[in-house]
């Protein structure tokens, strides 16, 4: 029998999962993750501090968009100057709309890319999908997964600890 990746504990409601997760975290488990059909606000800051970077990166994307828009609009008239309606070559008011739009699109793209890259998605298959009953994680199942790689992980102890709380526990095979 191959070495298991870790233990997946199933709960029947979000509340026990949250408590278990927090407790586990307090005990010092770090390589653990909770799975639920919707975000459990109590856990979010704990598990993914990097999420707070998203707005910052979005702002960067916006700046990139602005730069690109200005470069395009000003560059084009400088590179091919034309008298259009006797207006100045670089008419600042008329730059606004496109620049703003580029900022928005830039920010949006940056945000979504951050999401995908940081969460390492798309990843169509994952060992957890192998675990029995895990498909309910997207529906009405609540799971806590503690990796075998965690320094505190001890098959017996952790299993016992989980058993006190969860309905049932599954081994996750690679």
């Amino acid at each position, binding site marked *: 029998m191959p070495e298991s990746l870790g233990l997946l504990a199933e709960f029947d409601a979000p509340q026990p999962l949250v408590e278990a997760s927090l407790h586990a975290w307090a005990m010092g488990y770090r390589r653990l993750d909770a799975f639920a059909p919707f975000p459990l606000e109590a856990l979010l800051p704990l598990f993914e501090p990097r999420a707070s970077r998203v707005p910052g990166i979005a702002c960067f994307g916006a700046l990139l968009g602005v730069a690109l828009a200005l470069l395009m609009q000003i560059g084009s008239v400088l590179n091919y100057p*034309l*008298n*259009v*309606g*006797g*207006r*100045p070559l670089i008419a600042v008011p008329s730059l606004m709309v496109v620049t703003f739009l580029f900022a928005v699109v830039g920010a949006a793209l940056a945000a979504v890319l951050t999401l995908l890259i940081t969460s390492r998605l798309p990843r169509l298959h994952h060992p957890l999908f192998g675990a029995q009953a895990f498909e309910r994680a997207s529906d009405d199942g609540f799971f806590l997964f503690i990796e075998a790689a965690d320094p505190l992980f001890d098959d017996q102890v952790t299993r016992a600890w989980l058993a006190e709380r969860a309905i049932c526990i599954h081994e996750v095979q690679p």
Partner: protein
Amino acid sequence: MSAPTVDFAALREHLAGLKGAAYWRGLEALAATPEAQALIEAEFPGAAPLIDRRRFLQLMAASLAMAGLAACGKTPEQAVPAVRQAPQLTPGIASWYATAIPFCGIAQPVLGKTVAGRPIKLEGNPQHPMSAGTCDAFTQAAILQLYDPDRSQAPRFKGRETSWDEVRGALARQRLMLDTSRGKGLHIVCGASSSPTLGRQLDTLRRRWPEARLYHAESFAETEALRTSERVFGQPLQARRYLQNAEVLVCLEDDPLGSGPRQTPLQQGWAERRRQAAQGQGAALSFVAESIPTLTGAAATHRLAIAPSRLPDLTLALSRALGENVADQPRLSARQLEWVEAAATALKAHPGRGLICVGMQAATDVQAQVMRLNQRLGAHGQTLDWQAPTLLGYERGQFWASLEQLAQQLAAGNVSQLLLLDCNPLQASAPEPGLEGLMQKVPFCLHAGLYYDESAAHCHWHVPLNHALDGWTDVRAADGSACIVQPLIEPMYSTRTLHQLIELLLTSADSDALNHVRSTWAHVAQDQWRQALADGWIEAAAPAIDAPEAAPVMLNLPDSEGLEAVVRADPCVWDGRFANLGWLQELPKPISTLTWSNVVGLSPRLAEQVGVRNGDGVEVALPGQLLRGAAWIEPGQADQVIALYAGYGRSHAGRVGNGLGYAVRPIQAASVSASVRSNGDRHALAFTQAHHALPDDETPPIRVVPRDRPQIAVQQIPASLYTSATDSGPQWGMVIDLDLCTGCNACVTACQAENNIAVVGAEQVANGRSMHWLRIDHYYQGSLDAPRSRFQPLPCMHCEQAPCETGCPVNATVHSRDGLNQMVYNRCIGTRTCASYCPYKVRRFNWLDWSANAAPSIQAQRNPEVTVRTRGVMEKCTYCTQRISAARIDSKQRGVEFDTTTVVTACQQTCPSQAIRFGDIADPASPVSNARRDPRHYRLLEALGTRPRTSYLARIEDVEGSDET
């Protein structure tokens, strides 16, 4: 449908209520009644279901017979270019040839521009005083007639195409019979012509066949005036009028400024007078008494609407007021007498500087009396002189016979051979016993003409004649000078000149067209001949003949009650000879801006009585004629008069001209009694200017200033945030003098010819999609029954702060360094933002593919220097940018300073009254800069801050009606 009629009471009231300059386009918008609104609805573009959708395709449709011609033509070797240039023709380099276009037998001297052997544009001949470089709309369109795919292309026998040998044989057989009968039974009908060569040939023919009889067939010719002059002076004399000297011009039912063979020189004179008057040199008064609105009436200082039957009384009153001792009393209204008094006073105040003109349809005694009056006014030698008649038709003390006499001869069965030469008497012929009926009995009928027309269809034989631009002949101009008509291109089809045809009849010889003309002028040495060809004329103006004292005339004063009808030549297709020319069909008729049809003109009062509105069908009964047409309400028309226009209702004009409008036979008399009734039809009329009133508190687009203080009330140009667009080099600008514009449409046609502007057909015009780059706006001003007319030519304004340019997302319309608002066709994707943003709406869009399926021959006419626009692109006036470039390149090649005065736009070039000035506004010495310093100078919609480069000089008004007070 219940046709709401116009609420005229409301209209009059509304107009009376308006203050100052009330500008309006038509009746309906004036009344705010729901009915009126319904009428406007009815008039809206799109509401034109009756017009055939396919016509524009049809009229441009390719005629396969012509395929291949598009490639290239060939200029005859004998033709002599007007200016010295390389002997062999260089592709792309235009050559100019001086020639003339005969119209009603009167030469319109022109220079023809040919590129790669193809004539592409006609312009007035600056060398010739009767043109001075300008010409009218008809002459501009003559080039299109040369290429008309519907021109007759081969001889026909009983409608089937045949060969010239067949024709020769047939003529030979007739010749034998005629030689035996000494010409008895030979009857020849000629259209108006002044060709010395033709005269010479007819003489030979007459000497050989003395019994032959000649007839005169021309709908609107001056034969009546000639007959009168013979009665008055003992010899037929032709008047030459010099309007530049006429400080007081009195017109009785005459339209010297309107379209006609003498329009160009007369307009020049009129404009010259106004120009001098504007500089304070003498007056420019015109008193016009007319039954239906004309250009002369529109330009008049004192206009009087009067029924033609009142003309004798008016003449009587005028004679009395001028000191003639006449017995009987004129029966005139106070208003009419007042007009007469004013006219007489003015005439007496300017001795020798007055001129009275009378219409050629007026009664003989009226014309005679006018001749006498002019003599008494000392007009002779000043504003008027006399010359020997230039038109053929008077020989050995007698005039050629009329068509009525021909009808008698036909009825009597005296006719064995009937030749119809270059005329179409059957176009609108009388019902039985009409000519066509009588001609059935004639054994030999031959028609010679440009088209296989109605007359041709009723003859056994038809032979195609050359167009003036592809055959040799000669013709006399209005001043009696003789012009040589030299071809610009080898004959396109197997056609012959009239001279060749007569030679064929006399000798069966296939003669050379040039020889006939050359031998007429045999006394001219060869080098002089070449010079004559280069200059465009061979014999200077005819000497003036001083006429003997004219005796007083007893005017007979007809009683008139009831309606009377007048028949006029159509301002755009004349008597129908131009019916197949799309340019002229689509040319908005002055004042009404109607296209593609003729109408039955009614005064507002008469329309009220008959109970019709614009476009309603009416039935008009004349002696011997019954016609059905569309009613059109013409403000300012005499109340008891029905206006009819000849030239329409044609069956054999060609694909463009067939089946438009109604047919009416021209009448010689000034008017005939008539009756009119509504017949419940509804006609869709295509006009270019919808009918609306200008809100009376807006600045009118046409500014009018009083003669004594010719100044525009100064208007502030809003300050601009932007620096002026002016850049290095010449800055192009245009100034149009509204005081000189008569609204004659010559510029519009010239623009169309120069810039390959598409013809779109009646339905598209009705949809508001006409393509003219230069339009002439017309507004009425003042009361409903006696309004003033205002004209305003409107090309692109080439704004320095052009809103259109900022609208374009793809840089397809941008500003050039020299201030042109450029249109880049191949960059345009057709968002139409530019047009939406244009406050002057001068941009034109190719809604469909107007030009692609034009006949190859039509394509051959196109100006190679101007892009033919495809579907889906915007276009507009370019200030003839191709001409600007040509001039610049030329100056570069010759290594000289670019002389901006050498650039002349097509519209400016052709304008007979030279109302348009174009040039470099950066050069303070240029004419256009001078014009811009004129106190009458103003810009259109100045308040928008668009800084237009095209601007106007206000019209000068001698009497009340100016709005700058």
